[in-house]
C-alpha cells in the first residue's frame, strides 16, 4: 500500500512522437483512480510508465517514497491486470497464481496460504487445477486478478481489464473489482475508454485527451462541472448536447430561440453551450425552443429523442411514457447550462454571477 506521485511525466517515443505531456497526479494511498479517454489519448502509455513497461522520458514517478524511474517492473511492488488476461497458457490456474511468488522466493507455506485466500475471495477454488484454456472469459479475468492479489502489491494497475467481456459480465465484474478494491484498500489505477466504467469505479476520474489531462475530479464533479467541451462530450450518456449560441446580455440565443438566463451569463458574445439531455424539459408555453424530432431511441426506462433545435443536433431524454409529438418546445433551468469558450472549449464559470444575483435577490424576497 502506498501513494503514487506522478510529476511532470511525459513520454516521447523513438522517432519523436509525443504520446504524453506533462502529467501531474497525486494519488493517495488506497485511492481508486480511473484514467479515461478515447483511444490514443495516452492513458495506457501513462499506466505502462507507472508499471515500468515503458521508459519514462520526462518527469518522475514515485511509488511510496521511492522514485521508480529506473526500477525494474518486478521491483516496483505493483501488479497489473491486462486486457487479454495474459495468463500463462501452459500452467494451471494454481501455477499461474504461484509464479510471481515463486520468483520472489516466497516460502511454500506462505504461497499456499495466499493462493488459497485469493482463490476463495474470487471464487475460483474449484478451477485451481485447470488450464486457462478450459475457463470462460470471466473466469480467466478472475484468475488474472488473483495473480495480482496474491502478490499483495502496493498498487494494482488495470489496463482495460473488462473490454473483452460481454456486456452483462462486464457489469458484474465491475462491481466485483470495486468491492475487492474497497476490501483490500490497495491503491489502484484503472485505464478504460468506457465512461460508464470510469464513472462507476472511480474515486477520482482523470480525463485525458491528446496526451494531456483535461480534468481531474470525483465522478460527480466531472459530470456536473466538465472543464471543457471535450470532457462534457465524453462523460455522461447520452453525451452532452453542445450547441453554438450567442450571449446577448442576460439572454442566450440558440439559433432563433432565446432563453432568459436570470443572471447566469458568465460573459457575452459567442459561446458553446452544453445542455444535458436529461436537463431539457418539454414545455407547452411558446417560450421554449422549437424542437424537431428526427428519430427516437427506445431504452425501455427512457426514450431518447434525437432532433434539431434551429439547425443544431440536440438529444433529449424523456421518461418511458412521455409522448413525442411534432412541434415540441424545450426549456431548461438556466442553472443547468454549461458555458464553454467558443474558441478554446474551456469552461466559462457561470457560478459566480449566479450566486451574486441570488445574494442580491434574497433581501428583496
Amino acid at each position, binding site marked *: 500500500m502506498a501513494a503514487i506521485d506522478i510529476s511532470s511525466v511525459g513520454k516521447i517515443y523513438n522517432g519523436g512522437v509525443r504520446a504524453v505531456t506533462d502529467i501531474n497526479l497525486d494519488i493517495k494511498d488506497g485511492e481508486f483512480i480511473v484514467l479515461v479517454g478515447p483511444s490514443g489519448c495516452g492513458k495506457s502509455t501513462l499506466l505502462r510508465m507507472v*508499471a*515500468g*513497461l515503458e521508459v519514462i522520458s520526462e518527469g518522475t514517478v514515485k511509488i511510496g517514497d521511492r522514485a521508480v524511474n529506473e526500477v*525494474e*517492473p*518486478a*521491483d516496483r511492488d*505493483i*501488479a*497489473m491486470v*491486462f*486486457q*487479454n488476461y*495474459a*495468463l*500463462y*497458457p*501452459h*500452467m494451471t490456474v494454481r501455477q499461474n497464481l504461484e*509464479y*510471481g511468488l515463486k*520468483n*520472489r522466493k516466497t516460502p511454500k507455506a506462505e504461497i499456499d496460504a495466499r493462493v488459497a485466500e485469493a482463490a476463495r475471495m474470487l471464487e475460483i477454488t474449484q478451477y485451481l487445477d485447470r488450464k486457462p*484454456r478450459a475457463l470462460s472469459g470471466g473466469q480467466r479475468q478472475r484468475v488474472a486478478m488473483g*495473480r495480482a492479489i496474491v502478490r499483495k502489491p502496493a498498487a494494482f494497475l488495470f489496463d482495460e481489464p473488462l473490454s473483452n467481456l460481454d456486456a452483462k459480465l462486464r457489469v458484474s465484474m465491475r462491481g466485483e473489482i470495486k468491492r475487492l478494491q474497497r476490501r483490500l484498500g490497495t491503491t489502484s489505477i484503472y485505464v478504460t475508454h468506457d465512461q460508464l466504467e470510469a464513472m462507476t469505479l472511480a474515486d477520482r476520474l482523470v480525463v485525458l485527451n491528446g496526451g494531456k489531462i483535461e480534468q481531474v475530479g470525483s465522478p460527480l464533479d466531472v459530470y456536473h462541472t466538465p472543464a471543457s467541451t471535450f470532457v462534457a462530450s465524453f462523460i455522461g450518456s447520452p453525451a452532452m448536447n453542445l450547441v453554438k449560441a450567442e450571449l446577448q446580455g442576460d439572454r442566450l440565443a440558440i439559433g432563433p430561440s432565446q432563453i432568459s438566463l436570470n443572471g447566469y451569463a458568465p460573459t457575452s458574445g459567442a459561446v458553446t453551450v452544453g445542455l444535458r439531455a436529461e436537463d431539457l424539459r418539454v414545455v407547452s408555453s411558446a417560450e421554449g425552443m422549437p424542437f424537431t424530432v428526427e428519430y427516437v431511441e427506445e431504452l425501455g426506462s427512457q426514450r431518447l429523442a434525437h432532433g434539431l433545435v434551429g439547425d443544431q443536433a440536440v438529444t433529449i431524454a424523456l421518461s418511458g411514457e412521455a409522448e413525442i409529438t411534432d412541434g415540441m418546445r424545450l426549456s431548461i433551468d438556466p442553472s443547468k447550462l454549461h458555458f464553454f469558450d467558443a474558441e478554446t472549449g474551456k469552461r466559462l464559470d457561470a457560478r459566480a454571477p449566479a450566486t451574486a444575483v441570488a445574494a442580491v435577490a434574497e433581501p428583496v424576497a
Partner: protein
Amino acid sequence: MYRTKFSDHLVLILGSLFLCMPVVVAFMTSTHTAADIHMNGLSLAWGDNFIATYEKVLTQKGGFTGDITGARMVMNSLILGVGFAIGKIVLSMMAAYAIVYFRFPMATLSFWVIFTTLLLPLEVRIMPSYQVMSDLGLLNTYSGLIVPLLASATGTFYFRQFFKSVPEELLEAARIDGAGPFKFFIDILVPISRTMIAAIFIIMFVYGWNQYLWPMMMTTDESFFTLMRGIKSILQVWVGSNIPDYNEAFALAVLAMLPPVAIVVIFQSWFIKGLTESDK
C-alpha cells in the same frame, strides 16, 4: 450437399498405390536371395529369405575393415539424426529469442543475414566446413558429423515467426512477475513452443537422418558410417563375377525408412498443431 462418388475413391486409391508401391516392392524384394533378384528382377511376392537377410544385414560384420554391422550403422544414423535435430532446435530457438526479444544494434540486419543463408545449400560451404573440422581435429567424430550442420536458418526463421505471434502481454506479465530473460525463456517460452519444437524436430530429424554427402566426407573410419553410406557400399562390390547383394541393399533401405516413419507417426498430431494452430 456433395456426395462422394466411386471415382473420388478411385483417384485416392490410385494416388496411395502410386506412393506406396515402391516401398512395398523394396520390402518384398528384400526377402528374396540376391541371385533370385538378379535373375528375376524386382518382385511383389513374399520370398522365403526374410529372416536370413535381415539378420545378416543387422549383425554381420562387413565393410572394408570387416567390423561394421548394420545395427551399428542404424545407431550412427540415429545419433546423427537426433543430435542434429536437438542441436538445431536449441541453437535456433536461442537465436530467434535474441532476435525477437532483445534490442541490439543491427538485429534486423543479422536476421536477414541468417535468413539469406537459407538460399545456400550445405554443398556450397562444404569445403570450408571440412577445412575447419579438419583443423579442429574433428574428422571421424560424432561432433564433427553434427556441429557444422547445426546453424539453421530454417529453424531460426520458424521460431522467429512463432515468437512474434506470442502476445506481448505475456512477456510483460512475466516481467511484472519477476521473471528475468532467462526465466522467461525457460519457464514460459519453451513450454508454449512445444508443438513448434515437435514440428521442427520431425523436419530436422528426417533431414539429418538422410544426410549423405557430409557424413561421407567427414568419416573415413567405418565405425562412423551411417545407413545411407552402408547402402552405397553394398552396391559397390560389382567386381568380377560378384553379384551385388541386392537383397541386403533393399533391406537396409527399408530399415533406413523405419525411424523417420516412426517419428512422424508418433509426433504427427503435434506436428500438425505446431504448423497450424497458435494456442497461446
